[in-house]
Each structure stands twice: as C-alpha cells, then as structure tokens.
C-alpha cells in the first residue's frame, strides 16, 4: 500500500477521536464524571462503548493472523472473549454494579472490609493493566510500520499521546463517546472490505480455504478445533477456554465500565447488548484469516501474519479501491489501539490516583497525574520487550485476571464465608503462579513437553489453585468474617426498587 493513504487514515482516526473527546469535555466537571461518567450512561450507548473498548488489537489484527497460521483452533479466542461476557453477565454484572464501588480495589475493600485486600487488588489491577497495555502499543507500532514504514516505537507513541490528551481532559465522560464511535468504526472497517473481498472470492470460483494445503500445516490440522500445534492439544485448548471465559470478568478496564450504568438492572441489559455486538464483530476477523490462506499465504513464512487484515484488501481488490479499503482497515486497527488503551489507562489511572497519589494531589489533578504514569510505564515496556507476540501477551493478561480477580469476584459475591485472609491467599497463589508464567514468557525462555504447555497456557491449573486457596483459607479463618457482611449482601443482591438499608454508599 502506498504510505500516504495509511497515514491519512491514522491521522483522521486520531483527529476524530480527539474531536469527539472534546465534545465530551464540556460535560466533564466533577470527580465522578472523570471516574464513572457520573453513573448515567444508558445501555445502548454504554454497550457500544464497552464493545469499542473491548475489541483490542488482538481482536482486530491478532485473530485473523492466528487463523491464517493455525486455523480453526484459534476460533476459540473470539468465542472465549464473547463467552467471557456471558460469564460476566450471569456471575457478576448486576451485583458488581450494586456494590456501588469505583474500582476493583473499592469492591474488594467494601466486601471484605480490609485495607490489605485493597492494596493487593490495586497492585494486581496495575499489573494486569500494564500487561495488557504493552501489546496495544506494540501492535500500533507494528501497524504503522506496515502502512507508513516508520520505526516500531512511533505508532505506540502516537497512541499514547492521543489517549493521554483525551483521558486527562475528559475522563470517563468523554471516553464513553469516543469508544462508542470506535466500536462502529471498527465494525465498518472490517465489514465493508469483507463484502468486497467475498465478492472477489466468489468471482474466483469460491475455492474453500480448507482445501488448500499450505506450507507447514496440513489440511487436517488447519480444520481441527484442537490446538494441534501444541504438544498437548487437549490441555492447551481447555486452558485457552478457561483463561478467556473467566479472565474477562477480571480485566480492570472491563469492570470499571460497569460502574457507569445507572443501576444493576441496566448493567445486565447493557451486558446483553454487548454480547450481541461482540458476536456481530467476531464473525468477521476469521473471514480475513481464511481468505488470507488463499490470497496471502506468503505472510506466514514472512512472520507477518498479524498484518493480513491490512494487506488483504490491497492484494485482492487492487487499484485505488484496494488502497482505500486497506486505508479503512488501517483506520479500524488504530481505533482498536486507541479505544482499548483509553479504557485501560482510565482503569489503571483510577486505581493509581486513589491508592498511590491521593495524598499528594487531590481529585481530578491526581487522576491526571496518574494517567501519565499509567501510560509511560507500559510504553517503555513495549520498547524493551519487543518480540513477544501481541496475542501471546494479551492471553497472559487474561490468564492472570482469571487466576486472581475471577475467584475474588465470584466468591465475594456468592459465598458468604469468604474472609480477607482467604482472599489474599487466593490472590497470592493465583497471581504468583500465573505471574511466574508471565515472567518466563517475557524472558523468552523456551521449554518443551509438559513444562512448556503448562507455562505457555497457565490458566487451567492456576485458576483452580486460586479458587482452592481462597476457599480453604477462608474456611480455616471463620473469625475473620467482615462485621457488616449481611448489609453488604443486601446491597449486592437486592433490586434497587426495594427500599432497604444498604449501608453507606461510597459515592
């Protein structure tokens, strides 16, 4: 693709993002605006915003690349990311909103009445947030490198600057509008080119991508839903399923959006709309991956499979039309980096400003200072840890979230006997074990056989370990039950329409 169209696309998306953010600035006045958009976002707008935030670089570029290389087994990622929302809906959505907290650490402290649990959760939110921000910046560098031939760090820097300007000036209120816009942009950016590509494919005789045996992977392997490239396909497949199904509810940027709903009932309805929006979107990336097998198989050997979404329109349509369609997918990719990074920055900055900087700065100032820290650290990490795949790093963030916050939320909401000591034990065990796998991956060690499979996809053993530790230690420390447990359970579970004493609300 000629660089000019790609650069124009990136510029247009960045400017539109800032302009829509500026529209939201006018409404952002209070601390509550900054953190949770004053809890007044309606389901339709909020669902678009959640969809916009959730569909990251891994969804937009990663899935197509993975499907191109490995085939059907990679469809577990989009299915798991959608099913994760269903798990979130049935297990935590309404009670989490009703808890009335700002952030995950707020929830942990409110439920377990312990400052130590709060501090543990804060550290984990920041860790998971940074682990997830890093591949966003790397992906941006990769994409801009493809369309404009720039250095790897330039794309990440652009994303970081645009996100910081928006987050610092408008907080959650303006980010909500921006992310809603970005969902529809991402959907259009995949849907419209896909129509043209499918028309070309049908014109070429509609050869099934499954029938061409390409390169290293034979046809049988490409169509199997098991992780055939792994030494232990069944284990790896189930570990991916557990990480994605249970990790979604523990991602800090996903959870923080729930506090922007007016009440528990709208939180549920919002989540249902999100399920629909995600399903609509996730049908498309695998189409690019499958068509890539027919029209761009050389990308596999060139280790550039992640760029298949950006390359394909240009190769299949050609001419000015192809250039424009490729520019459109580039715009969508940048929207993906911007929206996910914004959400993560808000979540991390919210926690940093409350728990680390709150003493020195106050309110909005603290939030803005925290946003800078929230972006700069993962940007540096992205430059240092260059070479760890985008999907790999995102997968690890899911595994850590599933091993720490998933048990905390599920047991905290549904099990009265959870104690603060139990929660800490579970988070230490789950976070420690999955963190070990993360460090091992970032150091780029390679293992073969079972150790390799267990460390590459840790969720299948770290999640049960974390649940077990939480339950056992809680049962052993029955004296540590929080004093206001009954009041908290009333607040979490009763519909807002019933007038009850729910104890003091955090806001």
């Amino acid at each position: 693709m000629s660089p000019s169209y790609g650069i124009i696309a990136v510029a247009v998306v960045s400017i539109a993002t800032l302009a829509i953010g500026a529209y939201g600035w006018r409404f952002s006045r209070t601390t509550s605006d900054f953190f949770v958009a004053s809890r007044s976002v309606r389901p339709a707008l909020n669902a678009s915003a959640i969809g916009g935030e959730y569909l990251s670089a891994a969804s937009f570029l990663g899935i197509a690349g993975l499907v191109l290389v490995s085939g059907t087994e990679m469809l577990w990622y989009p299915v798991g990311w959608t099913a994760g929302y269903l798990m979130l809906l049935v297990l935590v959505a309404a009670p989490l909103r009703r808890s009335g907290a700002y952030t995950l650490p707020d929830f942990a402290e409110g439920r377990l009445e312990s400052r130590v649990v709060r501090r543990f959760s804060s550290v984990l939110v920041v860790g998971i947030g940074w682990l997830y921000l890093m591949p966003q910046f790397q992906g941006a560098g990769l994409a801009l490198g493809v369309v404009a031939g720039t250095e790897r760090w330039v794309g990440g820097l652009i994303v970081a600057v645009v996100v910081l300007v928006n987050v610092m000036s408008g907080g959650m209120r303006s980010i909500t509008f921006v992310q809603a816009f970005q969902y529809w942009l991402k959907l259009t950016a995949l849907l419209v080119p896909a129509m043209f590509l499918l028309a070309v494919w049908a014109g070429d005789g509609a050869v099934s991508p499954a029938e061409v045996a390409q390169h290293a992977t034979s046809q049988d392997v490409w169509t199997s839903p098991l992780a055939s490239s792994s030494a232990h396909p069944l284990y790896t497949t189930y570990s991916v399923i557990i990480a994605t199904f249970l990790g979604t509810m523990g991602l800090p940027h996903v959870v923080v959006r729930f506090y922007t709903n007016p009440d528990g009932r709208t939180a549920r309805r919002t989540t249902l709309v999100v399920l629909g929006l995600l399903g609509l979107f996730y049908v498309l990336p695998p189409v690019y991956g499958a068509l890539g097998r027919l029209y761009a198989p050389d990308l596999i050997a060139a280790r550039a499979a992640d760029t298949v979404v950006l390359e394909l329109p240009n190769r299949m349509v050609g001419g000015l039309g192809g250039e424009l369609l490729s520019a459109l997918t580039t715009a969508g990719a940048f929207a993906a980096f911007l929206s996910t990074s914004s959400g993560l920055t808000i979540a991390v900055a919210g926690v940093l400003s409350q728990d680390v900087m709150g003493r020195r700065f106050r309110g909005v100032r603290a939030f803005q200072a925290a946003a800078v820290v929230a972006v700069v650290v993962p940007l540096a990490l992205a430059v240092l840890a260059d070479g760890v795949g985008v999907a790999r790093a995102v997968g690890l963030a899911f595994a850590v979230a599933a091993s720490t916050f998933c048990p905390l939320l599920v047991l905290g909401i549904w099990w009265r006997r959870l104690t603060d000591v139990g929660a800490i034990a579970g988070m230490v065990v789950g976070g420690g074990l999955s963190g070990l796998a993360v460090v091992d991956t970032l150091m780029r060690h390679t293992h073969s056989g079972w150790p390799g499979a267990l460390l590459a996809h840790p969720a299948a053993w770290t999640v049960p370990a974390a649940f077990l530790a939480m339950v056992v230690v809680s049962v052993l420390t029955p004296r540590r039950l929080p004093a206001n447990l009954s009041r908290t359970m009333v607040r979490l579970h009763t519909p807002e329409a019933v007038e009850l004493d729910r104890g003091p609300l955090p806001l």
Partner: protein
Amino acid sequence: MSPEGAPPRRVRVTSPRTTAGRPRRVNVTSEIDAQTRLGEIYMSSLVRVQLRLAGLVVVAVLVAVGGLPLSYWLFPALDKIQVLGMPLAWVLLGFVAYPFLLLLGWFYVRAAERNERNFTDMVERS
C-alpha cells in the same frame, strides 16, 4: 385501702388489649434491615435462586461449548464432516456459537429480572 372512710382514689382501669390488640405492622424490609433470622432467610432465598440460575447457564455453556474439544479429541472422524461446504468445527465456532451465547444471555436476563420481581413483590406485599 385508706382508713377513716375517705373515699378511695379513683383509678382508671383499662384493658391492656386496647393498645396491644392493634397489630403492629412489620414488613419484610424492616426484618431484613434489622438482620433478624427471618430477614436472613429472605435474603438467602434470593441469593440462592439467583445463584442456581447462574449455575444453570454456566453448566449449559460448559456442556455445549466445553464439550466440543473433548468430542473432537475422542472422535477425530468429526473433522471430516462438512456443512455448507465448510468444516463442521468452523461452522460451530465461527458462526453458531455467537447466537447461542446471545440466546443464553437473553434467557438469563429475563429469568433474573423475574426472580427480582418476585422478591420485590414478596417483601413489599407483606
């Protein structure tokens, strides 16, 4: 009894039942607020019915979606099945999974809101 024929002091005698007989209105919300045994029972019944519903959906997902890798591992011949010119696994994971998950979500939201309505009716009627 006073002596010297002084008239006894008149005392107004009333039945204690005139005040106690009127039923005091105790509704469930105040039972819950006071964290009485009864209030706890109402609360745990709400939590239990919602948890059972959530468990139902989780099991449905586990059986339908989680059973897929196992069945492909046990019966590799499934790989050969074609639907509409595509491998069966591709059709299931690429297209069918999303409406299925959405349908489950829709069922859950309806049932959860019904449970909450029942709870609201119960505590406000009494």
